[in-house]
């Protein structure tokens, strides 16, 4: 792992620690009296703060997870080299696209 990947993973870990805490706190708060799609969309639709929060959350996860996955694969399998790096970039892109698409969907719905 290069120093920049190391810094990226540690930096995004700090963001994720806070984001996950807020995310879980919101879930606990939101389900206190039952949960409906209408309630969720009522909070998220057109809510710029919500979109910004989950946008940052998704981008941090999309950077953080593939770096860790790359280390695990290098240690537990013989997979090395550019094909591994390329695959991890693909995982990163997939996480980013799926996550941002979901956040955008409940924002625009």
């Amino acid at each position, binding site marked *: *792992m*290069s*120093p*920049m*990947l*190391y*810094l990226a993973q540690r930096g995004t870990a700090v963001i994720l620690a806070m984001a996950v805490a807020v995310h879980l706190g919101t879930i606990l708060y939101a389900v206190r009296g039952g949960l409906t799609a209408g309630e969720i969309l009522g909070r998220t639709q057109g809510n710029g703060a919500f979109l910004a929060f989950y946008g940052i959350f998704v981008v941090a996860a999309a950077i953080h997870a593939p770096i860790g996955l790359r*280390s695990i694969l*290098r*240690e*537990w399998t013989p997979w090395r080299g550019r094909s591994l790096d390329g695959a991890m970039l693909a995982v990163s892109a997939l996480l980013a696209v799926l996550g941002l698409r979901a956040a955008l969907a409940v924002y625009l719905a």
Partner: protein
Amino acid sequence: MNAPFPAPSPTESTVDAAPGAMLTVRIRRDGGFQAFTVARRPAQTVLDVVTEIQREQDPTLAYRFACRVGMCGSCAMMVNGRPRWTCRTRVAAVAEGDGLTLEPLRNLPVVKDLAVDMEPFFAKWTAAHGAFEPGAVPADDFAVVAPESPERRAVDAGIECINCGVCYAACDVVAWNPDYLGPAALNRAWTLVNDVRDRGQDARLAAVSGDAGCQSCHTHMSCTEHCPKALAPTFAIAGLKRATARAALKRFGAQAFRGPSGRRPS
């Protein structure tokens, strides 16, 4: 996942066995174990046991030692599954009942019986730029290094390494990633990073970065747990992580400021 090394036996004791007691020693040889029986003696070390077997019972048993007093770092081997310096390890402290299991050091190729090839270990020492780099031009005068300076204290904390290979054998990351430089080489690099006279820091920090370098350490602390000299390679590696990160940020900042062409914007 199970812990790689068994926890110390609850019966662990430093009290010598009763006179006449015998010790059963299982030694890994030729892919299996061969058992020997040796008399228990007062203040007997594991190295004493191996030496007695080789001199009295089987002269073909291969092992390595030199100083016998904990200075040379030659005699390390796996004792009951844990890496130890055998010249300073009392049998009474590590025997499980009346048994002792001896194997060659983990993570290194076996030459014969209990003797391993240390070449990969020292090759990584070299790869981590573990030699002092004086620079192209000799210094004009002696460097003044205050004993209480943070750099000198950091050097002191890691300088007593005897290259025994115990930390290298204890390290899971070395087992998983054979390219990983390992705790001893990185500890050595950290002592030189803190040597204010050294002129090879950029190359050294580059050498200890990357997939084989300090960033791959999982901070399991097996090296620190097992080091017979009570050094803490884990903290040396943490220091290298900070130093390499700072250097990378500085490089990144310089590149961003100058632009990709290397010229400063006017």
